[in-house]
């Protein structure tokens, strides 16, 4: 069973009390427990079961403007005592930093909304096995599918965040995730693709038949790819790729990158950085949202941020420390964005496909080719060539490249937004990027 709030609270208050007793002027503690159970299948038979029970505690102690931290998975009292003593001793000799502090008291979250993030349902491993059997049966109907792997994970977590200013809150959350990876083979190539579903509530996850079917279809479509020639071309990014641009954007507007001066979006607030049809929202209180948070990792209340309105950057993602450096108040984004999304564009998916006579449709990128200091972007890609709105043939072993400063201004979004992950985007088109191929 997952540890209850009372147990976590007792550990947190033990640590805060001891830190104070030793002479810490402030302290904050996070204690969490998470239990997850995974069953994996391969080629329609059981492959692996994995049960994980993890405890974690992290403690920060302050002596005025000096700060140090420790973390551990061992919650036995005498271990905690040793660690807090060590942390306090380290704090003493760590140099002062004028920006170190707990969050402003008036910004701490007071009313904790119930966002329905916890489903107590428990799916026995036998039932997980039934789900995966159905999934893989459907995924392997076509004889071009030569390998199937799938998994079902149930996760339950609980945590408490407490600080010496009296904040003490936490809540349970859960997730149910099923995934399917299929490999297809023909005389020309072997290809892999996937599909997955992840929700807070068991009843909301996709049907196994649907999941297996989609994974298999997507994989078979990729067989016998061609390499295309180097060219300037319009690129459509499938939803599962377009959301990645939002993650890069979130990294570039984090107060830490801005304060350090290592972001291509530094000093860009109130400036046009996207095409004027683009709006970006970060909404923390989405019911059952995969990224929903009642407060951030420092206990600061979270409110909806309209980060980009008509292409203009309104806000950074601000935590306490970097906020103080930048002379900004924390907006509850220590630990990053919550449910971040591009709002829908005006054009339909179909019309987007037909918008140019020749389009590269990207379904997967590989590599870490994103440079947030310069905005330079260069990654390997696989996808399809689309001509006059029709998918013609699969494409691979190419790279796509550009610079975010220019790419962001050439974004067109379709109107097919769905809330599947914590970061979501409609299908996206960017005009005039460079493809390197033959």
């Amino acid at each position: 069973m997952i540890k209850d709030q009372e147990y976590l609270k007792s550990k947190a208050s033990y640590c805060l009390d001891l830190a104070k007793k030793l002479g810490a002027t402030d302290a904050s503690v996070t204690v969490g427990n998470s239990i997850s159970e995974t069953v994996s299948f391969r080629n329609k038979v059981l492959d692996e079961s994995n049960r994980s029970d993890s405890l974690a505690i992290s403690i920060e102690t302050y002596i005025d403007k000096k700060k140090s931290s420790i973390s551990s998975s061992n919650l036995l009292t005498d271990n905690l005592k040793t660690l807090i003593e060590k942390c306090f001793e380290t704090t003493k000799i760590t140099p002062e930093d004028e920006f170190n502090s707990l969050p402003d008291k008036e910004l701490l979250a007071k009313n904790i909304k119930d966002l329905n993030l916890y489903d107590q349902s428990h799916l026995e491993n036998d039932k997980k096995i039934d789900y995966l059997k159905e999934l893989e049966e459907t995924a392997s109907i076509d004889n071009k599918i030569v390998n199937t792997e799938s998994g079902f994970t149930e996760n339950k977590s609980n945590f408490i965040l407490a600080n010496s200013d009296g904040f003490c809150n936490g809540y349970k959350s859960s997730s149910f995730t099923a995934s399917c990876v299929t490999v297809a083979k023909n005389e020309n190539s072997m290809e892999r693709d996937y599909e997955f579903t992840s929700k807070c509530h068991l009843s909301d996850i996709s049907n196994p038949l649907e999941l297996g079917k989609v994974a298999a279809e997507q994989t078979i479509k990729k067989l016998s790819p061609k390499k295309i020639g180097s060219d300037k071309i319009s690129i459509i990014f499938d939803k599962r790729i377009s959301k990645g641009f939002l993650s890069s954007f979130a990294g570039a507007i984090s107060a830490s990158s801005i304060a350090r001066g290592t972001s291509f979006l530094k000093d860009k607030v109130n400036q046009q950085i996207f095409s004027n049809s683009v709006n970006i929202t970060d909404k923390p209180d989405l019911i059952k949202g995969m990224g929903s948070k009642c407060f951030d990792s420092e206990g600061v209340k979270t409110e909806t941020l309209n980060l980009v309105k008509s292409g203009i950057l309104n806000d950074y993602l601000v935590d306490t420390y970097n906020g103080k450096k930048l002379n900004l108040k924390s907006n509850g984004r220590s630990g990053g964005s919550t449910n971040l999304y591009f709002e829908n564009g005006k054009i339909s998916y179909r019309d987007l496909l037909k918008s140019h006579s020749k389009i590269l449709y990207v379904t997967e990128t590989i590599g870490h080719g994103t440079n947030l200091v310069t905005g330079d972007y260069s990654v390997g890609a696989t996808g399809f060539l689309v001509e006059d709105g029709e998918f013609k043939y699969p494409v691979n072993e190419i790279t796509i490249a550009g610079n975010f400063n220019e790419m962001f201004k050439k974004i067109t979004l379709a109107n097919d937004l769905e809330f599947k992950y914590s970061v979501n985007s409609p299908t996206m088109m960017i005009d005039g990027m460079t493809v390197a191929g033959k």
Partner: protein
Amino acid sequence: MSNFFEKSDLTRKDVDEIVSETLKNCDDGEIYFENSKSESILLDDNKIKSSNYNSDLGFGFRAISNDVVAYSHSNEISKDALKNSAENLKSTLKSIKGTYNHEIPKTNNKFYDDINPIEQKTLDAKLEVLNKVNNYLRKKDSTVKQVTASFSGEQKSIEIIRSGGEALTDVRPLIRFNVSVMLEKNGRKETGVYGIGGRQSYDDYLKNDNWKNVCEEALRIASVNLDSKPAPAGEMKVVLGPGWPAILIHEAIGHGLEGDFNRKKTSAFHDLMGQKVASEGVTIVDDGTIDKRRGSLTIDDEGTPTERTVLIENGILKNFMQDRLNARLMNTRSTGSGRRENYKHIVLPRMRNTMMLSGNQTQDEMIKSVDKGIFAVSFGGGQVDITSGKFVFNCTEAYEINNGKIGSPIKGATLIGDGPSILKEVSMVGNDMMMDPGIGTCGKAGQGVPVGVAQPSILIDKMTVGGTKL
């Protein structure tokens, strides 16, 4: 050495009994105890930004029948926690039987000392080095706008207990020292990063003010990039420098030769054993036995002593890298390649120090032979799609080659290639093999493990460079 049972109601005899009882009908399995202590100290933006200490303790209990793995882990080292895990394993493997439980070979070799690097240098001394780095770089060059420097150190003690009471232990030190610098000139910003490390104490790497060399290298890379111009796009010849660029070998070839992907036939190499997969003159080994290197291990995470595994010899595919599970199912032996990030993860066959051995040509000859191409000296991360064989990596320092001469530096570009065919495009192998500086971490199935790479300069006849200039 850690005593894992000191503060618990568990005795060594209890563990032996529970393990033997749980695994009696299984083909394999073990209980793995781990106690790790780690620290990270970071200087950033002129300040000591964080000093963190972590202590982690836990066990992972694994039972295997045929090809089914049941795993359960917990941070609570107690009789109850162990019995719960045992019940969980039995419930997965209820109708399955096995008898293999192959013996583990023994070793007297050790590739690093039982030290705790964290305790071998005081916090004050570490802070002093970080401050020196910051002052040195900012004083040295007025275009320096940001300096980040860090120490990370770890001591990991493990004990593996197998059915029948056999126990294997290891104590593994690991450190890394890293410097990153950002320059700004005429409104343009570029970064340079360099690091060093391995399985020794901090001071073994910082002798004779060696931190200065690390600073100089980071600064040099950033300066080169300040003058870089857009990279070309398209297929061309590529000369790779020695050392760290061997992550190409790691991504393009290494992952595809890991036992699990080949047993499952999802690797593009699974049916190529004994066949020619590289040009003549190309020999690649994966070696866990190099003294004090980042990717070296005395025993792997299943207790098997590591070895030097020849993967490709003179162009011919000779061996895959194996853990016990995949070796048994493929009728071969473990190569001591079974690794896990920590007790929370199952064992997978992984690389250790992956190296392409020297040939007899010079880097000069390679550059001179190229009319139009690029010379890649250093890389950031790489990635591979095991199934299609396509891999990428990102240049962090590269130059144009025009008519046999090195030209201007070019902006970070992604190189993409095809794993099974790339080594057939290698037309020259240099005589200058070099190890990387000890900074690599390899990710697979969500688990990161420290690895090393090495290679001489090589010439690849055809690769796609993902620049923006057509």
